[in-house]
């Protein structure tokens, strides 16, 4: 391995959560990032390329992990990358205000055969706590370069990369102080090293394998069992005798870290009351904390209505409508179906995609801001007691809450949930949150259906959705996930001023990812729905209407024996607010007409009207949501499950509500 001969160098960026690693990555790479998934994994992978001192640098952002055991998918990805891809250098970012705990990851990285350097980040946050770290003293103790940083202010990053290049070009100069293990375990480690010597296939470093065997690492144990069966019995015997060694090893690492930092760190003797202490007294309080949370979310929604919706209207008035009119004029010579396909299929679909963008941008901005400041884990903490009985913990609350705006960011927002099972459950529950699209339909129809009781009915519908969400959550948790509880252990980082650049990049990446993946599919679906609904320019003779008619017997159980109403429901698949537009077409009046809601109300009995709204609130997720469900779970199985689940729930609830209401009234 001669790095000088190589064209570009690969630098892996490692770090525990909440050390500002993504800020470092964003500052170094800007928008020239490639965001994807780790091969075959649901974990996001980010890489970026840039030129430093005339050398091309490929920077790979490893998932944020506390250690390098095989406890989680993230940890496995991080260590597999280091072992199998062999980066030239690893930069480990540590948070100066929690130095000792952050160096734990370093103590694990040092036993791997790749040079490591330390980016000592958040030195400004540490100073506010009265903590001062002498970088050069730490460097002398560790025998590995330490570069002080304030990533949010772009300080020290150039020095960090220069240091990384020097290390990559001269790996022989790297001779760090490696963590030792307790004297009573040393003979066993030596015995394990002897046993596996020469029997482990590359690229696994033998010393590291011996270490991991002593730690009882399941993956490495399986590897040795498979690759070195002849020594397996002896190895197995040794590990069984020292089953608890991993706790001693972890303790030993912290003792080693304590020795490394002793001379380098200067901290206040008595605990200072920090801003974080003061804020947390309110923000994490079971009562005041909930009030703060409600306030913050009210603000997020106010922003959505105040900023996003006018932008949506503006885009519609000055972009989509002129485009549609222009296209109509331009294609006047062609058969009607051409302009139909273009205007009602393609441009209408593009309009749907566009309406999502401002809302998504605001929601992702809020998510990014709340995460960057350190508030999000507090929100999870406050809501944990309420989420617990669904087998979820607090981290699921925020994504679900986003669902009130739009289910798409709710599903995408589940990335903040660490545990895969909890994440899938949250994704399955997200479509039960009534989004603005559905609430708009209810707001339009309920007054005509129920007069003065409309507000009460709307409130009842929303409550009903949430009750069904809770019951579904409990049932899925008990039946499919067998009641397995996810441990709630979450770091509450110190509050800090966010980096606007990071938030901007976060908004851009997520919104663009949606446009790229869901956008094309929505366009295709939109054209397909158009083809099904009005090939001859007449909805009432279309395949969609035929389908609606064919479904009338099912609808009858819910009191919906009018094919037009069923067809409107089916069309909500493209976007929830489509229901009104289709009703308008089918009832032969514009969607803006005040008479439309009344006209629909006339054809339905009160019981049927109620069941229509119930089904509408619970119906299958819209196309955009389905696309992101598939994208985030990476399995068709969960999308199919979600579809069937929502279909059963909505039809079941519709039938139940209709039959019961009919009995009562």
């Amino acid at each position, binding site marked *: 391995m001669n790095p000088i001969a190589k064209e570009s160098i690969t630098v892996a960026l490692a770090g525990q959560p909440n050390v500002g690693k993504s800020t470092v990555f964003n500052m170094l790479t800007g928008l020239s990032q490639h965001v994807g998934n780790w091969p075959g994994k649901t974990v996001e992978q980010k890489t970026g390329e840039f030129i430093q001192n005339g050398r091309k640098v490929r920077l790979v952002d490893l998932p944020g992990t506390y250690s390098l055991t095989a406890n989680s998918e993230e940890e496995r990805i991080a260590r597999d990358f280091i072992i199998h891809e062999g980066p030239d250098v690893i930069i480990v970012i540590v948070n100066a205000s929690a130095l000792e705990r952050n160096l734990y990851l370093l103590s694990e990285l040092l036993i791997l055969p790749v040079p490591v350097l330390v980016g000592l980040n958040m030195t400004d946050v540490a100073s506010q706590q009265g*903590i001062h770290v002498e970088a050069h003293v730490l460097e002398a103790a560790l025998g590995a370069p330490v570069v002080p940083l304030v990533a949010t202010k772009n300080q020290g990053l150039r020095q960090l990369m220069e240091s990384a290049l020097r290390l990559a070009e001269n790996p022989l100069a790297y001779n760090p102080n490696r963590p030792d293990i307790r004297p009573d375990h040393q003979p066993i480690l030596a015995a394990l090293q002897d046993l596996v010597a020469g029997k482990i296939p590359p690229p696994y470093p033998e010393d590291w394998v011996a270490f991991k065997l002593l730690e009882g690492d399941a993956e490495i144990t399986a590897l040795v069992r498979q690759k070195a069966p002849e020594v397996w019995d002896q190895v197995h015997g040794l590990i069984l005798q020292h089953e608890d060694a991993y706790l001693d090893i972890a303790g030993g690492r912290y003792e080693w870290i304590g020795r490394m930092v002793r001379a380098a760190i200067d901290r206040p003797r008595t605990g200072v009351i920090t801003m974080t202490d003061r804020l947390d007294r309110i923000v994490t309080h079971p009562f005041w904390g909930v009030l703060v949370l409600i306030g913050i979310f009210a603000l997020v929604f106010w922003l959505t209505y105040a900023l996003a919706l006018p932008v949506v209207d503006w885009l519609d008035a000055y972009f989509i409508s002129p485009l549609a009119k222009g296209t109509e004029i331009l294609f006047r010579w062609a058969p009607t179906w051409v302009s139909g396909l273009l205007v009602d299929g393609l441009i209408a679909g593009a309009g749907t995609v566009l309406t999502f963008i401002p809302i998504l941008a605001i929601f992702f901005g809020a998510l990014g801001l709340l995460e960057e400041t350190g508030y999000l884990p507090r929100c999870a903490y406050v809501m944990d007691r309420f989420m617990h009985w669904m087998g979820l913990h607090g981290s699921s609350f925020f994504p679900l809450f986003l669902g009130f705006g739009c289910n798409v960011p709710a599903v995408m927002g589940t990335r903040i949930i660490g545990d895969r099972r909890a994440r899938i459950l949250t994704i399955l529950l997200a479509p039960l949150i009534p989004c603005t699209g559905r609430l708009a339909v209810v707001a339009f129809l309920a007054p005509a259906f129920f007069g003065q009781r409309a507000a009460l009915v709307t409130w009842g519908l929303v409550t009903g959705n949430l009750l069904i969400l809770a019951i579904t959550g409990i049932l899925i948790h008990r039946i499919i996930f067998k009641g397995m509880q996810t441990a709630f252990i979450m770091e509450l980082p110190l509050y800090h001023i966010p980096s606007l650049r990071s938030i901007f990049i976060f908004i851009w990446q997520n919104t663009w990812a949606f446009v790229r993946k869901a956008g094309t599919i929505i366009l295709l679906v939109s054209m397909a729905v158009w083809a099904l609904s009005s090939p001859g320019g007449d909805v009432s003779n279309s395949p969609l209407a035929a389908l609606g008619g064919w479904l009338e017997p099912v609808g009858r159980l819910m009191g919906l024996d009018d094919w037009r109403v069923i067809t409107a429901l089916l069309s909500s698949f493209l976007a929830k607010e489509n229901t009104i537009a289709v009703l308008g077409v089918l009832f032969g009046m514009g969607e803006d007409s005040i008479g439309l809601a009344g006209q629909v109300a006339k054809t339905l009995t009160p019981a049927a009207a109620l069941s229509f709204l119930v089904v509408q609130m619970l119906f299958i997720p819209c196309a955009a949501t389905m696309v992101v469900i598939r994208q985030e779970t990476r399995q068709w199985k969960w999308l199919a499950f979600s579809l069937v689940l929502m279909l059963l729930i909505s039809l079941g609830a519709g039938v139940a509500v209709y039959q019961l209401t009919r009995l009562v009234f």
Partner: protein
Amino acid sequence: MMTSEKTTHRGHQRSRHRHDRLNKELSEGQGLKLLDEIPPGECIIVRKLYGGKDFTSRMAALGFTMGAEVKVVQNFGHGPMIVTVRDTRVALGRGQAIKIQVEVI
């Protein structure tokens, strides 16, 4: 497993068999308690972690090793709690807190 006797410890309405069993085990040692019983403001030392390897190794990586000093920041006697360990605030569910045996200092 099925200890049917009522808990002898103060103020615990919910009878958690597991909790009782651990507490019984503990009452023999002096000054040893489970983390969920520690009121806010008190400092303790981690003495033992119960539970599976996944849990214990995760806790160890976060800094909850034998002998580590922990300060309880928030504990309302129900719901999750907040502690600081090695300069880090950590929120813990009660289900996790009862798996940490501590010594009051």
